[in-house]
């Protein structure tokens, strides 16, 4: 798994968080997964194959939706998970454009909200991208490899 797959996601996430939420993220080395979180997964096909998994800790998830709506949110209901799935979709779409500039032509599947962390994560080479905010750390797991031709 190449490190060059990570930067397109890093740039896309920074840009989308700034644009939609006026929120800055800082790349950190490691982070523990939160107990309560929203997990969104998308698969990638084309020149690269694999999955991208977003882990939004609960507090961050609620704040994000609050910023967008101007309303208070207290639990991870379908409004919240659906809004975050769309944000993961937007970030991934922008990351695909960034990858295209590096000559990788890929498509993403519609986002799926998972109720628990995906299994078999250790069997696929995965790069973790932890991005810190004042409301917790978003972890993006990037598991991509070149599609055998």
């Amino acid at each position: 798994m190449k490190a060059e797959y990570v930067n397109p996601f890093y740039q896309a996430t920074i840009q989308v968080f700034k644009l939609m939420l006026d929120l800055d993220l800082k790349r950190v080395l490691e982070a523990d997964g939160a107990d309560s979180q929203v997990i969104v997964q998308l698969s990638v096909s084309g020149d690269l194959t694999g999955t991208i998994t977003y882990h939004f800790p609960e507090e961050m998830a609620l704040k994000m939706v609050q910023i967008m709506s101007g309303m208070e949110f207290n639990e991870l209901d379908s409004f919240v998970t659906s809004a975050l799935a769309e944000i993961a979709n937007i970030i991934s779409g922008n990351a695909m454009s960034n990858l295209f500039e590096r000559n990788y032509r890929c498509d993403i599947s519609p986002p799926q909200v998972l109720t628990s962390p995906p299994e078999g994560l250790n069997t696929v080479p995965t790069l973790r991208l932890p991005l810190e905010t004042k409301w917790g750390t978003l972890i993006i797991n990037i598991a991509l490899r070149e599609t055998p031709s």
Partner: protein
Amino acid sequence: MIWKEKYRIGVSMIDKQHQELFRRVEDFIVNLRSSGKWEDRQEKVKSTMEFMKEYVVVHFRAEEEYQKKINYPGLAEHQRIHAGFKEEINNFAQKFEEEGYQEDLVQSLAGKLLAWLINHVASEDQKIGSYAKSLGGDSNEG
């Protein structure tokens, strides 16, 4: 108010419509998020949702007309994005018919719609404004 000044694209007809659209979305979401039994609220939620949906169609059409008028080179791509979103809304409408007007489903639609709209207006629609500006004319008329 969920509208932000930074969403402005500099074309006043479109900016006004965006503000109206955000008002309708907000009205829908405020009703959807209000407390009380779903049975008592759902008629009001439904009518604010229909009111909003109506305007999505009106606005998309007007925005595309404007792009045609100024020969915007990204028109085809923008039409494709609008069509894709309308299709997703229609998928929800179909689910409402099949599964009934379930609160959970309406909450999902609203969450997705809010995020989609903010991103679309803050990024894709901005390109129309930049192009209008590059033509040199007063993009704020009309």
